[in-house]
């Protein structure tokens, strides 16, 4: 790297081979830009080089486009910029790999000149998916590749079906997906036979790993699912530490029973207990606001209603269901509550303010709860919680403890999912999609973007309603500490 400077400064001498030094500044610039302290030094060098290059370019003129094109070819925009960049019409399309190879004596100067700054080349967004500008680190929901999964012979058919259900949205919600996953693994363990010379507790995690990875590709697990898988692996490990020697069938039976107990205790029974706790805070005449649809919140409301009606057939409370595009899960909740006879109002996020003034309690569901007390839930929850705080309405989150996790998130973008196909089913947006480019999906000019989750900071949550009672959001680490110790 140190021989760059003398060669660049000695621009008159055309004897030195041109390809190497020209490549080095490009290589130094493009991939190592984010590499760390070393890149810092290099970019300082590069800035100096740029200044010199600009000065030379002011003199050199004609050779520049070739170097610019060559640099653009290797720049972060990649080949897309190459084909799309209108700053370099004909030159340099194919010369990215041979920067100064075809150069004459004058070309040596151009080749040795380092790559221009990005501002010289117009930054063209790659055609699709354009969301990669901000959300390239997030998984996009794509239809699962079932054919390869079957052909690999490593995925149980029930797991394939589960993956399809999760990816299509038929199975949505943290409780539903975690229960589904555990039930599927129950069947997998039931059908499992360990190969010869292998012990079940050593081999079974390897048997399950490809399936877990495939399910992650269909839909990311989330905190609850991750906790469940970790618990299952722990259970399998515990089999290895046992004293008595059980037969494989007995071990499998033990695992199947453990999974059933986990579902019963931490999801089913927890939901029941939460409903019991929450019901004590709901009085006749209350107006409760809920957002989208959560299985445990629905359970709380129906239980509270039936208990209240038992005690006093005239007593009533009202529910406001707030909903949002694209999923419109609140519609199904509206149906469910109306079937029970609960007076329900349905509205969208846009009508939140006027309704909050007459709300007495906001009851939210959760996908995960982080160690700093922040809530990871359906996109739009944060809006409801923040506005409720403005109106001094208590916000209670109904959440089972298996969704508590030790991680910390400070914003909603760290872990999220991007839904790019949501306009396909939404009839109201057909016109927009067609107008985009006349093509299906709107073509290259239209980006459809919907984030699935968002983050509500702890200060907007009044209390968490869990199966161990009402706890403040700050005590999540205490609970996770307890469960990790082996409750």
């Amino acid at each position: 790297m140190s021989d760059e400077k003398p060669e660049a400064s000695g621009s008159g001498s055309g004897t030195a081979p041109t390809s190497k030094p020209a490549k080095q500044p490009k290589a130094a610039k493009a991939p190592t830009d984010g590499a760390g302290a070393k890149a810092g030094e290099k970019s300082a060098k590069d800035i100096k080089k740029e200044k010199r290059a600009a000065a030379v370019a002011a003199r050199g003129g004609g050779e520049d486009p070739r170097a610019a094109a060559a640099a653009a070819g290797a720049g972060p925009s990649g080949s897309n910029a190459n084909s799309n960049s209108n700053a370099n019409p004909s030159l340099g399309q194919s010369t990215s790999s041979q920067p100064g190879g075809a150069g004459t004596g004058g070309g040596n100067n151009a080749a040795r000149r380092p790559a221009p700054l990005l501002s010289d080349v117009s930054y063209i967004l790659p055609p699709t998916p354009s969301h990669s500008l901000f959300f390239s680190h997030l998984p996009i929901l794509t239809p699962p590749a079932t054919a390869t999964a079957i052909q690999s012979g490593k995925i149980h058919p029930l797991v394939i079906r589960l993956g399809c259900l999760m990816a299509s949205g038929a199975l949505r919600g943290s409780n539903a997906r975690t229960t589904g996953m555990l039930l599927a693994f129950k069947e997998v363990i039931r059908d499992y036979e360990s190969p010869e010379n292998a012990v079940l507790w050593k081999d079974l995690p390897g048997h399950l790993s490809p399936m877990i990875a495939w399910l992650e590709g269909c839909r990311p697990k989330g905190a609850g699912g991750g906790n469940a898988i970790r618990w299952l692996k722990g259970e399998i490990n515990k089999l290895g530490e046992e004293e008595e020697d059980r037969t494989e069938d007995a071990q499998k039976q033990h695992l199947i029973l453990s999974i059933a107990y986990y579902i019963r205790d931490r999801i089913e029974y927890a939901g029941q207990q939460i409903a019991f706790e929450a019901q004590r805070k709901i009085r006749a005449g209350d107006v409760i606001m809920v957002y989208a649809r959560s299985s445990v919140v629905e359970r709380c409301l129906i239980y509270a209603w039936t208990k209240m009606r038992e005690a006093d057939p005239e007593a009533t409370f009202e529910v406001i269901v707030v909903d949002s595009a694209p999923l419109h899960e609140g519609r199904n909740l509206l149906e469910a509550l109306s079937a029970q006879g609960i007076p329900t109002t349905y509205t969208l996020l846009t009508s939140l303010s006027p309704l909050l003034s007459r709300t007495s309690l906001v009851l939210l569901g959760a996908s995960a709860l982080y160690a700093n007390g922040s809530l990871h839930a359906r996109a739009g929850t944060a809006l409801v919680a923040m506005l409720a705080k403005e109106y001094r309405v208590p916000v209670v989150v109904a959440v089972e403890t298996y969704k508590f996790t030790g991680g910390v998130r400070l914003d909603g973008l760290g872990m999220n999912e991007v839904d790019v196909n949501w306009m396909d089913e939404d009839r109201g947006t057909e016109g927009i999609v067609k107008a985009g480019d006349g093509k299906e999906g709107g073509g290259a000019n239209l980006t459809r973007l919907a984030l699935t989750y968002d983050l509500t900071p702890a200060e907007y949550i009044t209390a968490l309603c869990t199966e161990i009672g009402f706890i403040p959001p700050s005590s999540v680490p205490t609970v996770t500490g307890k469960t990790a110790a082996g409750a």
Partner: protein
Amino acid sequence: MARTLDPSGVSGKRPIIEEQDFMAVVLVGYGEHLYPFNEGTNVLSKALLPIGNKPIINIVLDWILKSGLLEILLIVPPSNYSALSNHLAENYSSASYPRLNIILKKFTDGERDEDDANTSGLGMGAKPAETEGTARVLKRFRSYIKTDFVLLPCDLYPPAYLSLSSILDKHRSSPSAVLTSVLYDPPEVIREHEEALLSAYDRRSSELLMLQNMDNLDEDFEIRSALLEAHPTLSLSTRLLDAHIYVCRRSILDLLASRRPRDLDSMKVQVIPWLVKGSWQKGLARQWSQLLCPPDEDPLLSALSYSTTSRVTRAPQPESDSKSGAESPDAFENGMENSQTLKPKPVPHVPWHCQVIISRPPVPEPPAPKGKEKGKPIPVAEPEYLIRSNTIAGYWELNRRFLRTLSSSVGATPARPAFDDPTGKAAIHASAQISADSLIGEGTKIGERSSIKKSIIGRHCVIGKGAKLSGCILWDFVTVDENAKIENAILCTNLRVGAGAQIKDCEFGPGYEVPSAAVLKGERLVLGQEA
């Protein structure tokens, strides 16, 4: 279940998971609409009809294999059994497809139910086998079908954008779908020859609501108000045809078994419309739901009850605080301390419906204009349709499409014609003119001064001197004597065209002999017939 060890050895000796969640069932018929192909000597099975010298059953089997399915049940008429068995042994041997399991069965195998015993007792003889409907055949083989299955015809040529995977995934993603079928938009030439079908479906929920043959309809057409109440936004169409691709739940066979076989003979004509009708009629739906959705069958049922997209079907239960009636039945789960006494729950009505996928070819993108090129007409790609070769029109269309792809792939430059001939034994005279968009099979001899345009010629044919063929499809072992002129004809196997004959727009069955100097236009003849 026998476990094969993973030959790739990646994971040590971990056995491959052999269970599949679907099985493919391919039914081969007699080809009633394919006269004259189905009469004569050495009749070729409907499944082995060549499209571009490749039997159509290969296309169906490859399509199935691409979706990952490995269990295929192939049910054929007894006369075709040996031909298909040989074909499968050659092309789909266990050496090349180690995990594939194709079960080949004749119609007449399989269990006999009581109705068969009755008819055979009456001495009705050979007829029942011929006219037996697909549903009855399916019922006979239900012991071979242990999982959910997809019923396919042998004559389907699926387009590139429709994969069996996507159809199966659509079925997998809907927990309450009992049937998933495919309706397709056919090209004009096919629609004229097929009976029109009236289909009603709900576009938003992809539910299939009604299938009715237009010929049986009177002047007026009535729609029940119950249907309109349940699906106010249904769509009606007479353009679409049934592709005979049915992804079925195994319990449909149980439902069929409980019904009289006489009423439910053919899957396409009787069973599917009947099943579809039952899905929205409340009484029937409830009644059949016992058989179609047996409790405890779906291990994911309790998970689905937690889903935010699940619809409500339960009646309000006054006392219990359980999620839904379909709890996991494991006994220990009921022993919860804080719960109220759980009354024995009435069996809930589990909803079920029939789904449909409408297959329409995507409008092909017009090729980007290349700026200053003048005078070169840019070929507009035509949309690729789903086509079945169960009629002559379909067969023609498939072959013509094959020829078009040949010509477009070869391009404007005149090149050697495509040769289907790995051994190079075709002896072609130098003075023969063969256009670039023709396909010549192996072992074919082509005489001098003959001219072949846009034709598909099978194996071991002999084309005499001066013969002119244009737009023809010749199967194997066809002999064309000198100076014959053939235009737009299909000549089946073992056929001979006499010298100087002029044939236009004809189809001749296997073994036919065209006398010399005959002039035939627009005929369909089989062996022994006079023009």
